[in-house]
């Protein structure tokens, strides 16, 4: 009887919690130590990569290993245009460059399914990196580029903005017609096509939207580093991290990738500082344990625990 008021009350509560958290994050450069702000920027970067990866790969099950390519395109766009144009425009261009690349690549390759798609997207990262290396060696005769530095607080705010917009986009896509189409493609692509879904279009557009945010993140992150070259800009690790983070967090819910990325980034930072020689080993073990014991990720575990609390049986939605 009271379900509508209950849900609206609940969404009001969660809405205000999110708003308060966002405000706390927005004013954190005023009170938090510099180190925390830099760490938060890194966390946002990974969250943006993971959430935007999950926008496409989560529902469709097409595992894309191209995040590093789109992130790198953003970085290079920023390095090339950074001297000539103001920062917001540079970031827009970085995002758009990735968006266009994804449209092109998507149109060419989204007919590939399963492992073939994953391998192709990973090949894209290598291809662009080698193309750039070749270009820099033979045409420009330089190696790498100097990037105009931007102060940490600005980087933080821009990252926070991209973070917020990518989350909102992901949220709205999930609840939309497009989200439903993506899910149907992931589960039975042929049936989706015969039910009137233009599967190619839906896949390509969503792939490009996810690349848009990766490009934007790359464009702003470039300004944190003084010097970039093809090896640092197109780092394959950045293709695998979003996948691992999304699996670790759990892809069923919107906050899964967020939690996964946040914990992972913090864990990485923590392990590097405490166990500089063994951190990769520990990291690997944690990842293996997560895959074996947490098939639904951290969020799945939390939901399971939540259900176990007595008297909470019907409150698990």
């Amino acid at each position, binding site marked *: 009887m009271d379900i509508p008021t209950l849900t609206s009350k609940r969404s009001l509560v969660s809405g205000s919690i999110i708003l308060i958290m966002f405000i706390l994050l927005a004013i954190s450069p005023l009170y938090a130590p510099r180190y925390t702000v830099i760490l938060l920027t890194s966390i946002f970067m990974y969250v943006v990569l993971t959430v935007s990866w999950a926008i496409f790969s989560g529902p469709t099950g097409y595992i894309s290993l191209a995040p590093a390519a789109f992130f790198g395109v953003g970085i290079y766009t920023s390095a090339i245009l950074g001297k000539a144009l103001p920062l917001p425009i540079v970031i827009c261009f970085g995002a758009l460059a990735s968006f266009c690349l994804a449209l092109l690549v998507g149109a060419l390759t989204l007919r590939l399914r399963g492992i073939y798609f994953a391998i192709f997207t990973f090949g894209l990262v290598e291809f662009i990196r080698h193309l750039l290396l070749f270009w820099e060696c033979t045409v420009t005769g330089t190696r790498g580029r100097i990037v105009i530095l931007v102060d940490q607080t600005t980087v933080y705010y821009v990252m926070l903005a991209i973070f917020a917009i990518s989350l909102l986009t992901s949220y709205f896509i999930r609840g939309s*017609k497009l989200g*439903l189409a993506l899910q*149907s493609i992931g*589960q*039975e692509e*042929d049936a989706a096509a015969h*039910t009137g879904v*233009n*599967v190619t279009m839906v896949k390509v557009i969503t792939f490009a939207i996810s690349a848009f945010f990766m490009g934007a993140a790359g464009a702003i992150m470039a300004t944190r580093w003084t010097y970039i070259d093809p090896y640092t800009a197109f780092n394959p690790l950045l293709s695998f991290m979003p996948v691992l983070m999304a699996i670790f967090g759990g892809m069923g819910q919107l906050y899964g990738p967020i939690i996964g990325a946040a914990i992972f980034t913090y864990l990485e930072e923590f392990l590097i500082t405490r166990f500089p020689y063994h951190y990769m080993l520990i990291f690997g073990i944690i990842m293996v344990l997560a895959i074996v014991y947490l098939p639904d990720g951290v969020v799945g575990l939390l939901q399971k625990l939540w259900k176990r609390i007595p008297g909470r049986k019907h409150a698990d939605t």
Partner: protein
Amino acid sequence: MPILEGKGMSKSFGGLAAVSNVDFHVEQGEILGLIGPNGAGKTTLFNLISAALVPKSGTIRFKGINITGLKPYKICRMGVARTFQAVKIFGHMPALDNVMLGSYFGMTPGLSSKDAVREATELLEFAGLSALKSTPAKDLTLANQKRLEVARALATKPELLLLDEMMAGLNPTEIAQAMELVTKIQDKGITIVMIEHVMKAIMKVCERIMVLHHGQKIAEGTPREIATSETVIKVYLGERARAGGS
């Protein structure tokens, strides 16, 4: 003018001619039965009509418009919907969402989410699934999954519905219910082509039957004509068998 018309349809897989030079037509409002032994090319013909496969030769006209070579989603949006022999449902999505996809992307795009929910709910009720609307499709029984496919196809608001072995694997009660559903769909003014192996059902429901054998059309006519046709009895029902005998 027939609602659907195929001329010289051919499709081969390697050296095997799955469908060879088949002409067919479907009249507005009728139920056409498509029968034939396993491997006769029935599903291939469906795949050619719905554009899951591209024909080697031949043309298909829907309401007089040539639809050969169009993409599956275009065919669907023009008003041809289908179900699948091996059910293809969106297993992890609730039954309601399965049907809503059809409402959103079918013949009338631009539906508000409220309208889509209302429409999908009505169709689930029509298919007798209203109690199961929030159940994930994978947890439904086979009979209900087949009904769900029908509801999803209807949600695209087709004028022509292709039913591929809707009754295979169902028990007698479920078959009776499925037959009732087919008649109810016809009452909505939707033309139906159905592939079926359940002879009792096809003899009773269809107004006209077409028989395929080794990719060729060997007979066409009313259920009575088909049941008594010498050729059909020989190649399909076996020597000295009698079909539809009641």
